[in-house]
């Protein structure tokens, strides 16, 4: 069964229809790449999944549970949406690390706040209390996986863009989201720094992390993603196995788009 089902997602800003009945699903352990030209609605789609934008229409289901349904107001309260967000993680194009915290604190902050809330709600049972030390140890393991074991105590301004983005990935992973979303994770990086970030995402794919990746790195999408969606003007024009869509697109619009990347 699909872990994520998005049905007929639509979103307008004023008169501009940015997403038009976008429907797709994603299998557990799969990586889905979303490609398309600038302004086609890729970021908006990820933002809808993370509830940073409210879709005007559509249904979002995770593991069969309806998280959001425009026809069901009971799925739309602010407090509920906060909890539901935790099904998703989002890695931003511009990292958005918290500058006043170290790499380690960036990763532990949200988990600590959640744990404190949980412990307050459910005091007493000491054995069930979520341990702040465990949170820290888990964060250190994540940093190590990102190849940043020696950077735990540094602040964002002391890190390169590639290192910052890897901290941001660890921060999103710390909450163990069902689906991890990336919005052009290497677009803000100098070319020589994209490799280290793409390598990390590739290793996540090898560990069967469920992911949705908006990217302009076509070779990367072909090699790492299981499936590719080509989004054009808010409509899914083509979707299929990554190799098929990128090596052998069926639609004229996909071909035109991909021809701009033909150098790789």
């Amino acid at each position, binding site marked *: 069964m699909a872990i994520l089902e998005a049905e007929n997602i639509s979103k307008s800003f004023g008169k501009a229809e940015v997403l038009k009945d976008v429907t797709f699903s994603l299998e557990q352990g799969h990586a889905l790449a979303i490609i398309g030209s600038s302004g086609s609605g890729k970021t908006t789609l990820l933002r809808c999944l*993370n509830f940073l934008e409210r879709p005007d229409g559509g249904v979002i289901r995770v593991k069969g549970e309806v998280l959001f349904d425009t026809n069901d107001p009971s799925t739309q309260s602010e407090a509920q949406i*906060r909890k539901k967000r935790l099904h998703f993680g989002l890695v931003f194009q*511009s990292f958005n690390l*918290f500058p006043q915290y170290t790499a380690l604190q960036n990763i532990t902050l949200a988990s600590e*706040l959640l744990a404190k809330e949980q412990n307050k709600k459910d005091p007493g049972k000491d054995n069930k209390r979520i341990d702040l030390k465990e949170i820290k140890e888990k964060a250190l393991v994540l940093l190590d996986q990102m190849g940043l074991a020696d950077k735990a105590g540094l602040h964002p*301004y002391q890190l390169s863009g590639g290192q910052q983005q890897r901290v941001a990935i660890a921060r999103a992973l710390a*909450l163990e989201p069902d689906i991890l979303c990336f919005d052009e994770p290497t677009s803000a990086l100098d070319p020589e720094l994209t490799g280290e970030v793409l390598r990390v995402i590739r290793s996540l794919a090898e560990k069967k992390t469920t992911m949705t990746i908006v990217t302009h790195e076509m070779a990367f999408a072909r090699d790492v993603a299981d499936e590719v969606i080509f989004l054009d003007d808010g409509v899914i024009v083509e979707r299929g196995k990554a190799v098929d869509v990128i090596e052998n697109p069926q639609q004229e619009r996909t071909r035109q788009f991909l021809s701009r990347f033909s150098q790789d």
Partner: protein
Amino acid sequence: MDEILVIIEILAKGFLVNSRLFLLTLLFALPLGLVISFGSMSKVKSVSAVTKTIVWVVRGIPLLLLLLIIYFAPGLLWGISPWGTGNSGRFNAAVIAFVINYACYFSEIFRGGIQSIPIGQTEAGQVLGMTKGQIFFKITLLQVIKRIVPPMSNEIITLIKDTSLARLISVYEILMRAQEYAPRGLIWPLFSTGLFFLAFVGFLSLLFGWFERKLDYFKV
């Protein structure tokens, strides 16, 4: 020699009045300014329109005039003296006028500081499941503070010097005391008041410098 010491003591007592006005203004104007800044950023159009109008009027009127209005208007218009009588009444009126004036200036500094924080910071907090309160207190606030230290220190240094305006409603502060010696041909007390302000501003500058260094461990 004795007279010099006596005069200096009188001036020092006057400067205590300036310092009290300074501290009370900060104590009330800082939180009030934060509330006003939230008002001017409110998504409710009428709230932000009213708040912005108030800020425009208060910032548009010379502080001196505001002081006179606050002190005299209740009596002239309604025949009441809400600030109390005598010395303490005049001092209270000065505090009210200064708080209103400075809260409006501070509110614009707060607004600028809050709006200068990239929306991505809030969004990063949101996708990590944080509440609005957690985002404000754990993420935004310290970044705002770091950004507003320089403009705030300017404004606060202006405040201590502005406190001597209170003499125009006969608050018996340092400059008013010093001026009393001028008709007797004693000019030095007036000039020496500058030393009190210089020392105080020097102390403030050191304090702000220390605070800025405390926040040097990160960049925004």
